[in-house]
């Protein structure tokens, strides 16, 4: 493993495969500015920046170092809080935090500084102004128990107003040179492999049949940090070229398994706003920078947020086995039981990508996630729904849920009850909801009661149906609500739903 840590070139081939970046900094480098608040990706005290060359430019993003294997940072520039100041000079994020009293106990502060620094550097690079929403987005994975965030948000909004000196900007060229010098180095890996191509992956996997796959590590690493499990060989699929692409070939959309949430957000922002808004509700900025779609699907959690969406769009999953052969499995057949999938360990199968028909993606669709907290929370219930309407009738639909069964699941009986009904047939809706109540029998846990989950399943379907019928109903998110967004009247016939291929209101 070789990478640039702040301004130092690091080479270390002595580490366990699952050794976290946080432990590496604190225990091996004495860089104790970075803190551990939870060790599970939830608090952001351990936030670092990773910089990589993208088309010749250095781009920085945040990640949770507590659940990131340090060896996954091979070839990158890793930045901790120690890098940002120089004697008396402070980075704009630091300066603003001091001036706005953004720290009290200070334990969350280094993590917050890095999240704000990333926002600052990226806004400088792209000339985007920093607004409240971008600040909250940047620190969505940073918990602060002392300040109540107001001064932190104010600090974020005023970065650069006092001084614009930035160690990151100052040293871009020298970092670029250092990173360039790392390119093409032979990897001396022994327990952590980071193949760049599928072919490379297959060779490595053949040599290490028992190796565990890791992408962002945002699920897998919790085994290491919370259950103290020691992994053997890890093969990191996040950099495999073929797995990191999003492609639109005119009839189908293909999303690589190693595409991160942040990448999918970028792609969907204008094309698929409903998908974009749901992605914003998944985890935090730090987690979305590393977590992948493939990891979410393969992890097979019944409360994962992507599977219901893939179910709604009838996605196909391309799976590649050890001998390089590919098979395609429909998402509808992928889950076999609680945390069980059709992937066969022995064959060394890996998910390559997901495909969806553009025509399906053009149908009216809505995604709703219900959780206790808007940012960085796991769904109690998640509904992904799609309706196709032909001549005033619902000609096709999917009602796909997370949190309602042992796997992500479709409510097929309720779907059947609505199929071919008039789009505005309230009786058909009522029947379907009555059926839905019996069809899915969720569990109670610390996130929600079974009763609430059932009631939500029905109410969310009702909400989607009303939206299909042209009602504009706000869906709350991490963003502030304005009175304008609280539309409480029936919108006109040219509503969004109609434009998206939904029904125009009868």
């Amino acid at each position: 493993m070789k990478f640039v840590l702040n301004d130092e070139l690091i080479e270390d081939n002595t580490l366990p495969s699952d050794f976290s970046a946080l432990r590496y900094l604190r225990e091996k480098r004495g860089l104790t500015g970075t803190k551990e608040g939870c060790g599970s990706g939830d608090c952001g005290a351990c936030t670092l920046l990773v910089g990589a060359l993208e088309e010749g430019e250095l781009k920085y993003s945040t990640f949770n170092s507590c659940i990131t294997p340090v060896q996954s940072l091979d070839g990158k520039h890793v930045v901790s809080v120690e890098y940002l100041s120089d004697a008396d000079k402070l980075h704009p994020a630091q300066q603003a935090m001091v001036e706005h009293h953004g720290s009290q106990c200070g334990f969350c502060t280094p993590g917050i500084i890095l999240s704000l620094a990333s926002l600052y550097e990226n806004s400088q690079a792209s000339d985007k102004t920093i607004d409240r929403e971008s600040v909250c987005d940047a620190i969505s994975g940073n918990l602060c128990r002392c300040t109540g965030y107001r001064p932190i948000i104010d600090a974020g909004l005023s970065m650069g107003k006092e001084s614009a000196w930035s160690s990151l900007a100052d040293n871009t060229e020298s970092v670029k040179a250092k990173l360039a010098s790392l390119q093409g180095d032979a990897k001396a890996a022994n327990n952590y492999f980071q193949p760049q191509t599928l072919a490379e992956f297959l060779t490595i996997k053949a040599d290490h049949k028992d190796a565990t796959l890791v992408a962002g590590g945002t699920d897998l690493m919790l085994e290491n940090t919370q259950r103290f499990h020691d992994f053997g060989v890890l093969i990191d699929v996040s950099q495999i070229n073929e797995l990191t692409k999003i492609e639109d070939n005119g009839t189908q959309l293909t999303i690589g398994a190693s595409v991160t949430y942040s990448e999918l957000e970028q792609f969907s922002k204008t094309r698929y706003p409903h998908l974009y808004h749901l992605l914003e509700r998944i985890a935090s900025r730090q987690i979305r920078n590393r977590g992948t779609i493939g990891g979410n699907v393969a992890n097979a959690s019944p409360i994962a947020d992507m599977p219901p969406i893939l179910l709604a769009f009838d996605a196909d999953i391309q799976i590649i086995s050890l001998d390089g052969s590919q098979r395609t499995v429909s998402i509808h057949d992928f889950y076999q039981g609680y945390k069980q999938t059709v992937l066969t360990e022995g064959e060394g199968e890996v998910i390559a990508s997901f495909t969806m028909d553009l025509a399906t993606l053009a149908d009216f669709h809505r995604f709703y996630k219900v959780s206790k907290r808007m940012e960085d929370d796991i769904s109690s219930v998640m509904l992904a729904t799609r309706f196709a309407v032909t001549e005033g009738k619902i000609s096709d639909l999917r009602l796909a849920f997370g949190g309602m069964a042992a796997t992500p699941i479709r409510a097929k009986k309720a779907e059947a009850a609505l199929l071919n009904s008039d789009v505005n047939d309230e009786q058909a809706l009522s029947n379907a909801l009555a059926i839905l109540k019996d069809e899915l029998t969720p569990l109670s846990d610390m996130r929600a009661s079974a009763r609430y989950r059932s009631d939500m399943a029905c109410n969310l379907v009702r909400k989607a149906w009303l939206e299909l019928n042209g009602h504009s109903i706000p869906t709350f998110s991490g963003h502030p609500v304005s009175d304008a967004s609280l539309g409480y009247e029936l919108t006109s016939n040219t509503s969004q739903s109609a434009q998206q291929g939904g029904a125009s209101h009868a």
Partner: protein
Amino acid sequence: MRKLPNDLTIQKDNAKVAGQTFNNKLKQPIHESAKKHVTGEAIYIDDMPEWPNELHVATGKSTEAHADIVSINLEKVRAYPGVIDVIVQSDIPGEVDVSPVLSGDLLLAGDFVHYIGQPIFAVAATSFRAAKQAVELAEIEYKIREATLHPKESLARQEFVLPTHTISCGDVSAAMASAPRKIKSDLYIKGQEHFYLEGQISVATPTEDNGVVVYASSQHPAEVQKLVAKVLGVPVGQVLVEVRRMGGGFGGKESQAAVLGCMAAVLAIRNRRPVKYRMPRQDDMVQTGKRHDFWNSYEVGFSEEGEILSAEYDMVGKCGCTADLSDGVIDRAMFHADNAYFLPNARISGYRGKTHTVSNTAFRGFGGPKGVLLAETVVEEIACSVGKDALDIRKLNCYQDGKSKTPYGQEVDENVLLTLMEELEESSDYRARRSAIQAFNKQSPFVKKGLALTPVKFGISFTSKHLNQGGALVHIYTDGSVHVSHGGTEMGQGLYTKVAQIVAKTFGIDYQRVNVGSTRTDKVPNASPTAASAGTDLNGMAALDAAQTIKVRLQEFAMEHFGIAAEEFAIEDDTVSLAKETMSFPEFVKLAYMNRVSLSSTGFYKTPKIGYDRKAAKGRPFLYYANGAAVAEVVVDTFTGEYKVTQVDILHDVGASINSDIDIGQIEGAFVQGMGWLTSEELSWDEKGRITTNSPANYKIPTSADVPEKFNVKLFDRANSEESVYRSKAVGEPPLMLGISVWCALKDACAAMSDHTFSPPLSVPATPEAVFYSMQAAKEFSAGAVLNSEKSVKSL
């Protein structure tokens, strides 16, 4: 040569000095560690360099809530690579009881366990991971006993950790019987996890004389010191505890931090090696106590106008398996069950329910919030019953002239609450917003809005009288720099900054000259915990006293040396005036030193006037009250119960502020923490007594997106009428209860589903699920009412 004044002794007049106020128009010092925080240079215990031979601790935990231990087999644990030492209760050299006040908290369990997570044995290993992996290998056999898990069960079974206490005034039953209207109901209030960002941690290093030095993340170093000495069986003086800063405390490190210091110390002494005990987050959430759950049942009688005539409250706290600090917590809940409202006739009983769960402990507000929430629920219910805006009921019942005695007999003599509420009502445009919301709700089928203004009156002083003392130690060095030690600890609240300001102001010198050093038990002995919001009141006053002692000495020296009169001496703006002459502070100090003037002094303070007679249940537990009020507005999605807080306006009384930036920071932080307690933070336990919310993945404290965009916080500008330090008021805890405005606003939005004809019960915390079912209840009530009126029309 001038004539010598006759009398060279000066009377120290602390009250006069402290009676001045800080000028808040001037730019205030920032938090003393702000720059170190943002650069990562601030050192927390886990950041201290480790010795190569340092050991790491993990504990083996009970998996049963209530059981006898039949057998323990630790063979595999001992054999695990990296394990150096394994101890059980009998290996503790001194006493095994580490309770803060009473008894029952054992460092390691003996032959029985009384909560899931209770430590049974401890491992010291060469790495943290090895220790954690090793403890999993223990084989422990239990004989299971019946467990009490809910405070309702404790009450039914009369299982209490301590005797019940009752406060009463007037003739409750007569007043209740004659009251025109009555409400009888109950409210279950869930507790709260502290979630300080820095988990519990201590490092112990053995000294050459069988003592230890303990670096602790504790709000109460003196108690850590005392308990470490106790478990080691050595004199207290052989133990030194140092606390530079905590990464948050919130009460969670008042009593419960000591266990870590004790465990590390025992293992350090046994192995003659430095030992670190850091709880990973999950252990911290399972093994340390939280805010108490409360089950409150109440009956109130009131007039047709909504004036409270009689109140009977039964408050059962879920103390957990031992007393810990619960006596004080339940008392404070009772002392605050009136909140801002005059109760002419009242009976308030507080029960210390014993449950087989982790022992609950101090948490910002220390029981107070559970009393205040009860009081606010009662006024909301009354308002609905008499069909008035809840604010009118609040103002009607608010303490004021002629209605100023609390149920425990203390006079609320500083008449600020009503003024403060009215000022906020005005500045937040409450009435106009109320009508706008009513209009909105009428025509909005899918979302509803809610609004509430809630006050808080919070008593300041420890309810245990002896804790109301503070100590400090001040030195001036020959270059004019000043070093201060005091008994208080820094957990982010800005205490060190304020104490430095106080010392600088008392001397009349530049703030930059003053350095506050880490809190050490060998500098200031027997200090009280930094708690009860009293950190600045006690330690600031003690530091002022020490500074005054030195300043008087300097003055006496100046009078003698320069032959000037007392009033010709002054230190102001960092300059020493000696009649017509001036001198820089360092020059003057140097001169005093050369003339053998002592430049060091201790300082001491004890809170005057207070005293509560427990037998009579009457007295003055508090020196004064801190007051505040908040208006919250919310909007709720009726499909799911999800909501957003859209605006919050706060007006809060900190007396004459010492540092308004720090005070506002405390208010905002406390508000958001209080809001979290009542909204997204839900503790959950399974039927076995296991806590299921054991990680931030399933326990959700607020994020920045939960904080309203419109968040206006103002200080109510009025000096404390009591002689507090520079006429300031305590600020740590009181504003937490301003978060109750959010809960009341949510309740208001739910009631809108019934057009405010019904006050639907709303669980605490008000998660989206709770809000959803509260709305359902209101909706069903309305539907039922319509049905009934239809029926009655038909039957006519």
